[in-house]
């Protein structure tokens, strides 16, 4: 097995790719992609800690990951529906164009 730090490094690379995308891209759909990437990195971390943890036979890490996958699936569905709604209203998905509440 590769050591735990390899998987944590993997998740860190993936998380920071998502972070850079979420902070620098303007398209709301790409921002949602980046959020999904960050979610995936978190799932990878959870499973890696489950695998290398002291009690893998209790499956706590896997149970937590399953619930996290359910929540991120719900987030993706609602987020994409919101983006569709915003597109219908503003005719754009650029987050810099949607600034009615900006002071």
């Amino acid at each position, binding site marked *: 097995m590769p050591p735990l730090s390899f998987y944590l490094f993997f998740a860190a690379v*993936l998380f920071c790719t998502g972070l850079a995308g979420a902070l620098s891209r303007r398209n709301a759909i790409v921002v949602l992609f980046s959020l999904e*990437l960050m979610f995936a990195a978190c799932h990878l971390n959870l499973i890696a800690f489950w695998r290398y943890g002291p009690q893998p036979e209790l499956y706590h890490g896997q149970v937590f990951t399953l619930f996290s996958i359910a929540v991120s699936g719900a987030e993706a569905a609602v987020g994409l529906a919101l983006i569709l709604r915003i597109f219908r209203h503003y005719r754009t998905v650029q987050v810099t164009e949607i600034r009615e509440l900006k002071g």
Partner: protein
Amino acid sequence: MPDPKIQLVLFLGVFFLTVSAGFYAVSLRNLVHAALFLILTFACLGGVFILLNADFLGAVQLLVYVGAVAVLVLFAVMLTRNVSLPGAVTPAAGTGLAGVVLALVVFTCMAASIFADPLAGTGPAVPVMVRDRVNAHSFEPTTAGFSRALIEGHAVAFQIAGLLLTAALMSAILLAQDFRKKQPGSPADPRTGTH
């Protein structure tokens, strides 16, 4: 798969594939290509889960992300095509760079803490006995034990997760529905066209 070298090679291959696909998913201008690279990232992550002996969650990852979220994402990309605003695509210079720099700083902190941690690598924090047991039972199926742990220990949370998914999907349908076609008396929106 008992050979640790094969596992390391598999890990490195799937690492580079996932990271490059994720990079393309957030950096490509073409949204359809970006969505396809995102799907590739998720599929590779399912492989990583299987490599970590979470075979059931690997299948769940493929079903949920490569199956369901992929369709959602592709439909959202297709439905929000906007070819009439070419000027809005180019971002203002400078602010995007700040986000990338911030992400790099965060990554540096994360990597430093990962490799400075005594838990990392083959450090002494993980007991040798545990590592031997994990290695000895490598790639045994986990579905039976996992489902038993889920139903016996977390049955209520499981039901609540189902309720959450139902509520989220219903609200997504409600949000994405176009109510304007059901109101014939309302003034027509000049931006939407008549067809």
